[in-house]
Every structure is written in C-alpha cells, then in structure tokens.
C-alpha cells in the first residue's frame, strides 16, 4: 500500500483512455464466447457457503429478513466456481462468467479486494486442450503469442536444481533461506514452493515485445497444490495435479484445472482445508455441500475450467504495474 493510495480523492484512479480500452476488452471477451457458442451465466455473489481454501478469505454480510431480528451470515463469492460446477452437474454445457469477485484482505499494487474475473468451462477436454482455448481468447483481444509450455518440475530443476515433488521440506526451507530471505523458517511446504516459484521462476516467465504479449503455461503442479483439480501421474509416475497457470511478463494471469468430478474426494478436500484453516487460526467457513451433492448425485461431465484475472490482463495490455490505473475507482477511493 503506497502513500498515494491513501490520498482522499473523488477523482477516478484510471484515465478515460484506459476505461475505454477496458470497455472494448470486455466486449471482445463476450464476442469471443458468443462466436464459440459458450453461454454467459450470472451466479450468486452472496452465498451461504464460502471457499475454504486456506489462503483465500471471504467478506461476510448479514441477511436480515424484514420485520425480524434474525441475522443470517452470507459470504461474498471469491470465485463463481461452485455454482458454475453445479450448473454443469445439472446438465449445462459450455458456460462462462465475467464479473466481480471479492477477496478479503488483498489490497495493494496488483491486488484490489474486488476485481473482475473471467471463468469458463469446456466439456470433453482436459487442461492441455484448454490452454489452446486460453490462447485463442487472448489473441482475440490483443496481440499474443505462446512462448512455451513447461512442467512445474522442469522449471524447478532448471532454476533451483531440485525436484519439487521429491525434495524434503528441509531442502526447500534451505533453498528459500538462500534465495529469498534468510529469516524465513517454520513455514508449510506449499509456502516454500510458492516463495521459491514467485521469487526465482515467475519473474522470467513470459514477456512483452513490440509485437505484443508473450505467455508461458506451467502445468503439472505438485499434488499438494491441487485445489479443485484432478490428481494424476506424470510420465515418471509422480503424483501431480492436473492444473495449469499462465504467466505473462512475470504476472500470474490464469489458473486452470481438469476438474475433479469425484464428490467423495471433493468433500474430503473441503474438510482437510477447513482443518488447515482452523490450524492457521483463520475463520472456518461452511463449505458448499450443494456442490458436493451435485458431484455425487448429478452427472458432472468430464470438463476443464479456467479463471483469468481481467484487471491483470488489462494491466499487461496497458503496460502498468498498478491495478488502480485500470479500474475507475480503486479500493482506497471506493
């Protein structure tokens, strides 16, 4: 949070030129999906359940039925993922959501507590085929080319000389202390992996040239970072998650999965996440048992889905590091 963020001002934080560019970007995205016959859906922003991801915090609101003093706790969605998957379980085909999501506590630089997310699902494909679709979408709105697709392991071995699936927690801690900060200790395995990735690998992924944006896809994340993706084996028999991320000019832009379709396993993961939140001393939210029921009872199709930060994409197109320059009013002026 820099000082200028704290300046009180009624003026917008973005220029009209950027706002016009954004309006065209949003229209371009809708045109792409219209041409691809993907249906736009509006899912609830207020929900009785929340994500239980250990590192994503939700805003809470109260529903007070008129004439009563009842207060029911609701949560602002952090992503449209759960209701979209319930639509798929109920028989919907390709769908997308383009709109605001909310994440508590994330403010400053590239982060705004409410931001615009594009999320879409495609039936009958896996996450590798979905990367082609992501490239197609970005190309339809701005000059873009792929600069490669690499496994998480390959990048780790090249830059840090360790296999992220085999290295011990102690090895990862030692590497973090050597490459990131000597005082970081006692963290979780995924924290070390994230620190090493975001400090030593991410800054060099993708770029920007006179011809446009260049992106790098990273796939086969460690199984411990599977979130809502399937877990599969790589060619060496190691367990990896069927997940990818797209980086452009060192910025994390999109996160995609070959979606987990097993309701039993989904429930188990939610419960594990709740336990981890409890251990971290964070609020433990109710998970979406409707999604678990949809996966167990419905006919959830084989599909892949991806979420993309549209403010981030606009920032890359506008060549700025600061999210406030691409939204009319940033959090500190909201």
């Amino acid at each position, binding site marked *: 949070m820099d000082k200028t963020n704290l300046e009180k001002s009624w003026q917008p934080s973005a220029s009209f030129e950027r706002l016009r560019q954004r309006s065209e970007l949003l229209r371009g995205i809708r045109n792409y999906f219209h041409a691809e016959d993907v249906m736009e859906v509006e899912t609830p922003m207020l929900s009785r359940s929340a994500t239980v991801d250990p*590192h994503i915090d939700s805003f809470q609101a109260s529903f007070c039925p008129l004439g009563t003093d009842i207060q029911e706790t609701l949560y602002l969605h952090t992503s449209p993922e759960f209701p979209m998957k319930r639509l798929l379980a109920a028989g919907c085909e390709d769908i997308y959501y383009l709109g605001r999501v909310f994440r508590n506590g994330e403010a*400053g630089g590239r982060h705004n507590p409410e931001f615009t997310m594009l999320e879409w699902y495609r039936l009958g494909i896996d996450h590798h085929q979905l990367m082609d679709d992501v490239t197609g979408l970005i190309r339809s709105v701005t000059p873009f080319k792929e600069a490669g697709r690499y496994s998480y392991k390959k990048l780790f071995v090249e830059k840090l000389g360790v296999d992220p699936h085999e290295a011990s927690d102690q090895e990862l801690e030692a590497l973090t202390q050597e490459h990131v900060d000597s005082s970081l200790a006692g963290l979780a395995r995924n924290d070390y992996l994230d*620190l090493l990735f975001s400090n030593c690998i991410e800054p060099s992924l993708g770029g920007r040239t006179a011809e446009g944006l260049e992106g790098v896809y990273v796939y086969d994340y460690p199984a411990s970072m599977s979130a809502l993706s399937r877990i599969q084996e790589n060619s060496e028999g190691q367990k990896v998650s069927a997940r990818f991320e797209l980086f452009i000019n060192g910025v994390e832009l999109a996160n995609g999965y070959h979606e987990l379709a097993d309701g039993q396993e989904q429930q188990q993961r939610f419960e594990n996440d709740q336990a981890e939140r409890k251990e971290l001393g964070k609020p433990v939210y109710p998970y979406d048992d409707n999604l678990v029921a949809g996966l167990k009872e419905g006919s959830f199709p084989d599909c892949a889905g991806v979420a993309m930060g549209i403010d981030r994409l606009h920032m890359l197109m506008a060549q700025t590091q600061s999210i406030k320059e691409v939204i009319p009013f940033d959090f500190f002026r909201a």
Partner: protein
Amino acid sequence: MANYATNEFRSGLKVMLEGDPCVILDNEFVKPGKGQAFNRVKFRNLMSNRVWERTFKSGESLEAADVMEYDMEYLYTDGEFYHFMMTDGSFEQHGASKDAVGDTVNWLKEQEVYTVTLYNGAPLSVTAPNFVMLEVVQTDPGLKGDTATGGSKPATLTTGAVVKVPLFISEGEVLKIDTRTGEYVGRQK
C-alpha cells in the same frame, strides 16, 4: 516504541531491522492466487546506507525506530565533532561525528540550517539544504573573451569543496551550489 504491521508499511516509515534503524523505500504485496500472502519490502539501513530487500509473511510486524529529523543550525567544528543547535528556541546542541556528517561536510556553513537525523537522541546523519551559497577562495583567472557558453574550470570553496564553474568566475565571488549534485547553479547578484 510502537510496532508496525506489514499492511502499515509505507515508504518513509522508520523501523528497526536486525538491530539497525532502517527506512522503508518500497512495500510490495505478493500473493499467489492460491498461496500464502507475503510482503516484499525494500529498506535502506540508516547506519550503513545499504539497501536491503526482505520478505515477510503478511501480518508480521516490526518495531518503530526512534529516528527523528530536526532543523538545526551549524555552529562550529572542534576537529572531531561538528556542533549543531536546534532552531526551536531550546538552544539544545548536538555534536555529530564525521561519519554522521559524511559528504555534507562539503556544504557546511556557519549559521546555515541543516536537517539533522537523531537516532536514540544522537545525530545519525546530516542533510544539507538543496542549495547553499559559498564563497570561492581559489580559482585560476578566466581567459578574456570567454562567454558563459564556453568551458569550465575548478574552483575551491570556503568549505574545501572543489566544484566546476564557468571560466568567468573569479575569487571572492559567492556561488549558489546544488548540494544534491554538487553543481554550480549561479552567482550571487
């Protein structure tokens, strides 16, 4: 002293880090979509002037450093210390070491007001005003016919500092110097 958490870090804030007072230059919030939040923070160590980059878990805090800046008038040097006096009417005096004065020694002039940074009550650094007026004590005579667009020559000021000046400057003239660059700006009219 108070503590500051990572979300309160902003440029200019002075905090203690590994026993040394530091000023925050930059604070970047770093968070992977699905990962733990960290803050990547750039500091300048006020003792060594070295710039550090450190990474903290978001929510961690640091102790505030007892570092304050005051306007003080330069009085004299006893050869070992440079003596300054508060301009707030208290007449309180502080002796700054050669290390604390640093390169500002080139721009020290009696009765001029400087910014003195105190750490735990003792001078840590001395910053000159952006411009000071200093007299030329030695310079070679300029060649006739030279104009302001011509070359330059060295001139020694009362402080001992040597600056580049236009050829028409002569001894005894008072010059305006930009202390941030050490460059000649103009003559006293």
